[in-house]
């Protein structure tokens, strides 16, 4: 792989920058491109699930399978758009939208009790029983004014999660 920026033209960089609402600087986009090419071993133009899983830090993340569904097969532009939710300058609604999408695995715009339980199962593994998860979830949902049959929409998520403590920032190393 030669110098990465030679295969990415200025036009490409500006195009990608526009699509992520200028959240990333041009240098960061070049860095991300180098990273993309590093992960995309045979220069297919997208990173396969297997190649993502070859990053041990990613593979051992409890939510890796859910994220894989969202990033598998993305081309570079969509890869950057996906990662823009992790930019320090990204808006709170944008970050919460990513969280919502992780829960809403069937992409119907609604997060049900069952959806939340599944995510909690991923996060706790074999260390919490289904019964325990259900009990905890029912309790906190009722306290927040929702029932077991409630479906949460993106607006509900924004209402619940929007607080200054929500940080989801990843720095792009620029050499």
């Amino acid at each position, binding site marked *: 792989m030669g110098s990465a920026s030679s295969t990415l033209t200025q036009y490409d960089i500006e195009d990608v920058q526009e699509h992520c609402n200028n959240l990333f600087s041009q240098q960061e986009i070049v860095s991300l491109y180098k990273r993309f090419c590093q992960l995309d071993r045979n220069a297919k133009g997208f990173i396969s699930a297997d190649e993502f899983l070859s*990053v041990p830090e990613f593979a051992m993340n409890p939510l890796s399978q859910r994220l894989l569904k969202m990033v598998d097969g993305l081309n570079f532009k969509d890869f950057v758009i996906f990662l823009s*939710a*992790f930019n320090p300058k990204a808006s709170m609604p944008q970050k919460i939208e*990513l969280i919502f999408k992780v829960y809403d695995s069937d992409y119907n715009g609604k997060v049900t009790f069952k959806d939340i339980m599944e995510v909690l199962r991923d996060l706790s593994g074999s260390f919490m029983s289904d019964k325990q998860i259900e009990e905890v979830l029912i309790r*906190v949902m009722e306290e927040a004014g929702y029932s077991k049959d409630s479906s949460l929409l993106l607006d509900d998520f924004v209402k619940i999660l929007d607080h200054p403590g929500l940080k989801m920032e990843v720095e792009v190393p620029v050499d």
Partner: protein
Amino acid sequence: MELDLDRPNIEDYLPTDSIHEPLGKLRLRDLLDISPTLREAGGAIVDDSFTRCFKSNPPEPWNWNVYLFPLWCLGVVVRYGILFPVRVLILTLGWIIFLSCYIPVHWLLKGHDKLKKRIERALVELICSFFVASWTGVVNYHGPRPCARPKQVFVANHTSMIDFIILEQMTAFAVIMQKHPGWVGLIQSTILESVGCIWFNRSEAKDREIVSRKLREHVEGADNNPLLIFPEGTCVNNNYTVMFKKGAFELGSTVCPIAIKYNKIFVDAFWNSKKHSFTTHLLQLMTSWAVVCDVWYLEPQNMKPGETPIEFAERVRGIISARAGIKMVPWDGFLKYSRPSPKLKEVKQQAFAESVLRRLEDK
């Protein structure tokens, strides 16, 4: 968290901000907020310490302007047109001398094992010197030369198979190696047999029992050559060290660390075995200006009382990394070829579960 003596505590190395220790009652917001976990995943996608270990670092291109470019072209002509043929000549000469001495000695001195071994050892050191000359290798050796004593093993950080050649030209080590195909495999099974080599197959490395037994037998043999082990188990790019496998450290012998650091200005000596074959790698070296490196023979270490083999391995890794000026990462080199153990994920899941259940108790 239970102390698993079989692997070091990775949490010591990785950032542990995945679960905040929040105060107060558990609310829906706390349960739904997966942002720390997502942040870790996003961080791993953008950059991770494991992939960094295997990134080739070609020297910066400096030929980018009108004055330097012709100079670079001249350099290319000199390297490929003059240096390379001369080096091929030297190497060929070396092989001729080596084979014309080795083959007779191997067959004719069959009865006189001790003499045979001594001559073969010297010849192996000779051919390694020829190899090193063929890359214009400039090696600075620091520290006392290794001597053959029973109950000792040598460990070094691993960047390329040339590590072995560079060390071998000074001392005829026996080595434990991955069996390679092609001409390398041929050399492994013929010439290296004479200095004593132990083979393993990475896919069968799970069969640690056999390898362990062979190691122990070798170390205990009084007139076996000193054993050289690369505990990382794979080639790393000489900016980092990955975790040492504990096999070399549970033999009950003294461990003598050796640190090797290549000077990148001249050539990147990292052998990216996924990208190039060893032949390509050698050709790359033979068409560069020089291979410059430092080798430090460090103070022999013994397992301290109460130290586990893993702790011993990590301590020696620390000594080697400090001497070579390279960073340590908490990853197993074999992750290049396989997925991480589910135990790593379970550690995180357990922490999450415990935090939730604990907060449930505080009403």
